[in-house]
């Protein structure tokens, strides 16, 4: 690992001040499960200044109340998957946290790091977008809130400026009647990187008619998004295999339209359609 100037922030205010002072040659370090691997690569572009925020207690924890969840960015995947509040009000996020990396990675890796690293395969991102999550970015000069899906420009690139820190992730709890699911397709069970994933939410009325549907595939589009084109097919209809197949096919067509044909397209084209279909079926069991 190449040398760098290391600073440990003791509170959020100090971290923001250090960021402002050293911007743009600066990088925040949280759990380190992505960054340390990156920095050790021979061709790595290590930052001049590293601000370690892992000791900031005010940036850790899950708050639940008034129908919403506030996730502090330094909350680890292990803490998310064990949280009763998340299991009850956002089970798809709990499932995603369970399938990230390994026990060791989940004990260190944080949800904030997963978001800000902005890898296309980040497993907590599709569920959070399906939950219509918002993120709060803070710098010395401003504090701004934006929908999570607007944070991302492309893989590994966000709209956050180098002097901004992610300080909160929040979302409304899912309605009691809504069902959700998350399916990850990897090459093995543990320590796998998502080849494709799908987060889905479906709510139905007493008559079984779908009133709300959200579909967010992972590692599928250059930018994460809800696939409203497929969601629209579902609302006002009753659950059926044909309906879910149509939604899956729509996602698949859009994937090809947006990413073009790649070496993996032959595989991904039918598979993403099936994953969407299964994710929707899981919501309607």
């Amino acid at each position, binding site marked *: 690992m190449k040398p760098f*100037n290391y600073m440990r922030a003791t509170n959020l205010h100090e971290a923001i001040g250090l960021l402002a002072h050293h911007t743009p040659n600066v990088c925040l370090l949280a759990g380190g499960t992505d960054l340390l*691997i990156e920095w*050790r690569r021979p061709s790595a572009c290590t930052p001049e200044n590293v601000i370690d925020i892992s000791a900031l207690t005010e940036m850790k924890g899950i708050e639940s109340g008034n129908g919403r969840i506030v996730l502090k960015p330094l909350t680890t995947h292990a803490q998310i998957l064990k949280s009763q509040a998340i299991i009850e009000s956002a089970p798809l996020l709990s499932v995603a946290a369970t399938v990230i990396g390994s*026990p*060791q990675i989940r004990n260190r890796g944080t949800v904030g790091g997963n978001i800000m690293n902005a890898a296309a395969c980040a497993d907590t991102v599709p569920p959070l977008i399906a939950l219509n999550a918002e993120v709060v970015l803070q710098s010395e000069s401003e504090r701004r809130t934006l929908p999570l899906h607007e944070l991302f420009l492309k893989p590994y690139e966000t709209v956050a400026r180098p002097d901004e820190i992610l300080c909160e992730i929040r979302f409304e709890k899912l309605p009691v009647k809504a069902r959700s699911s998350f399916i990850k397709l990897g090459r093995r069970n543990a320590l796998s990187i998502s080849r494709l994933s799908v987060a889905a939410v479906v709510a139905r009325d007493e008559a079984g008619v779908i009133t709300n549907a959200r579909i967010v595939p992972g590692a599928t589009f250059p930018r994460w998004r809800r696939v409203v084109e497929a969601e629209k097919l579902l609302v006002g209809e009753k659950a059926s295999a044909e309906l879910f197949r149509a939604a899956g096919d729509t996602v698949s067509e859009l994937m090809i339209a947006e990413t073009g044909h790649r070496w993996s397209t032959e595989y991904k084209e039918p598979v993403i359609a099936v994953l969407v279909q299964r994710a929707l079926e899981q919501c309607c069991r």
Partner: protein
Amino acid sequence: MLQMNTLTITTTINRRNYTLCINPNQTLLDILREELGLSGTKRGCEIGECGACTVLMNGRAVNACLVLAPQIEGQEILTVEGLAVGEQLHSLQEAFLEHEAVHCGFCTPGMLLSAKELLDENPNPPETDIRFAISGNLCRCTGYVQIVEAIQAASANKPERKP
């Protein structure tokens, strides 16, 4: 070339307090093996995939290769060297010996510590939980069956020993 700052940190490793002078670009694994001579923790893949460098940090299994050395300030680290108390082996170590769960031995320290986190949390885990708990530890000798048996034997829910 950037002039790097050295840091003085205090930490607890295997129940002993240390004040260490470190370079910030070292990892916990570097400190354990190169500075303190605690070579029981193995250097494997160094990308957090093999689990050979697993240690406990405040009771939680972590990859020592993915913890930056300054991040152990004020934390409690337990390595395989700290499992035994004096001459008394930990019940997991006894069980690994008894069940021949050690083949080449390279994964063993990490396996022991992942298993310890599990048993500390749930002294009576079902087999699926054991397999889940060691899913971040690779055994290239593929001796998983004996390892799972050993962890079961060390748990409160001891299965009958096969004749």
